[in-house]
């Protein structure tokens, strides 16, 4: 048993070296297709993050009557804190509102000052849960609107829907492209492995004729395929890390906060493992299937 394992390992290493020309070509192909996949995964990580950022900001403002009673206010706040779809809410007094307005439109601040009274009503700013459905939101809005002490509700449903849609769009594109890319690179890699086996049909035939069992023939090929996949995966990871290091340098530092938003994120640990592991699995399956094709008798 140990004897045989040693043989298989030696054979694998030997063949990897013996066919190094062809193996280098193959690993290059494998590595590059994983690299493309990795670049995409890195972008997708970021896309997801951006989508999260965007959908987090879904909020509404409830303008209250200026003369709202503390009981009415407490009732409304109670409703809001009981609702499952609300993440945070925040009371804004008329003074705070005026302050905010002046900050936002400095050239109009004179006007507000010149009024002699504060035209801004008190309000409550509400942020919705990311997972809340718009039907739930609408139900809640209707309920609040009918509560006494509420003057008006500002909630740009259309805009919010768009932002949500953008989030969904990004996720969908991510899944779709990711699926295509994963499939494509898996196809590419397994085809390269198959090309490798194809060119060694003679060897398989000879081994069969000198009394090798199918198992004996298959194992070194499978190990070889796995190693090629593994090496390709590892090199592509290294390449990916380098690229991600270089991109910010290339883009320059002038982007400020935006780099944060769109920067390339490293693959997560599980993604890296996935990449390398799938390299091995594809190598295994690819070589397995094509060796098997040759192991049939006439």
């Amino acid at each position, binding site marked *: 048993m140990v004897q045989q394992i040693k043989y298989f390992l030696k054979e694998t290493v030997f063949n990897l070296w013996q066919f190094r020309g062809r193996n280098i070509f193959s690993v290059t192909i494998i590595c590059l297709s994983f690299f493309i996949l990795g670049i995409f995964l890195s972008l997708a990580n970021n896309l997801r993050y951006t989508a999260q950022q965007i959908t987090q900001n879904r909020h509404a403002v409830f303008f209250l009557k200026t003369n709202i009673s503390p009981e009415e206010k407490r009732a409304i706040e109670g409703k809001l804190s009981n609702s499952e779809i609300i993440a945070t809410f925040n009371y804004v007094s008329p003074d705070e509102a005026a302050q905010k307005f002046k900050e936002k439109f400095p050239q109009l601040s004179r006007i507000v000052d010149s009024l002699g009274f504060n035209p801004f009503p008190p309000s409550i700013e509400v942020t919705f849960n990311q997972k809340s459905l718009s039907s739930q939101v609408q139900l809640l809005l209707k309920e609040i609107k009918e509560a006494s002490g509420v003057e008006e509700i500002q909630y740009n449903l259309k805009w919010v829907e768009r932002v949500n849609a953008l989030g969904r769009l990004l996720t969908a594109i991510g899944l779709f492209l990711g699926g295509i890319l994963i499939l494509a690179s898996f196809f590419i890699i397994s085809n390269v492995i198959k090309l490798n086996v194809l060119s060694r049909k003679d*060897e398989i035939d000879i081994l069969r004729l*000198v009394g090798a069992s*199918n198992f004996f023939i298959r194992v070194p090929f499978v190990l070889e395929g796995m190693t090629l996949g593994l090496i390709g995966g590892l090199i592509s990871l290294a390449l990916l890390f380098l690229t991600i290091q270089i991109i910010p340098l290339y883009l320059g530092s002038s982007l400020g906060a935006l780099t944060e938003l769109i920067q390339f994120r490293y693959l997560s640990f599980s993604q890296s493992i996935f990449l390398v592991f799938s390299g091995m699995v594809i190598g295994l399956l690819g070589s397995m299937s094509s060796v098997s094709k040759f192991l049939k008798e*006439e």
Partner: protein
Amino acid sequence: MIELYRIWKQYRQPHWALSDVTFTAEKGDFWFVTGPSGSGKTTLLKIIYREIRPTSGQIIINGRNILRIPDHKIYNLRRKMGIVFQDFKLLFHKRVFDNVAVVLQVLGRPKKEIRRQVFQALRMVNLHHKMWDFPSQLSYGEQQRVAIARAVVNQPQIILADEPTGNLDPELAFEIMSLFKEINSQGATVIICTHDRELIRHFGEKILFLYQGKILRKETL
């Protein structure tokens, strides 16, 4: 014991590569198969080691109908055989040593034994000094001798040799034939296809003459 019973083989319409070949090689027999180019010698051997199946007929080896052995078990049959292929079938990416050793490696023999036996086999064909060369670095006759060494390294019960001396000089051919004879005298069944009348004259005990796939005659000297 190898028994072929009414073997017909057709690769393609309308020619029969073998027609109605019935032939028995007892344990310890030393057969020559001869006949003009294209008369079906290689086909006969291929059927015996079951690289191909006959169109009809039965082959019994050691009491077993080899046509019934499933493909994935056929290696058990081949392990009993030492085969010299007409086109050698060497592994060109492996050294001479490994080409011969592979027969023992598939059996999982210990390393030390492999080394000893391979060296012995290569010495028998006078190639031990080229053990670490690649086949592409050998002359054609030397390659043929590697193929012969591989066939005999495992002291098989059955030896099938297809034109094993076609690229060897008469002296070497003589030596190789003596080697086969020696293995035969230890109990192995040997079937050799050859065109070399000199060798047949000298070593022939039982001779099968093929002509256009038919047995022309069997001779026992």
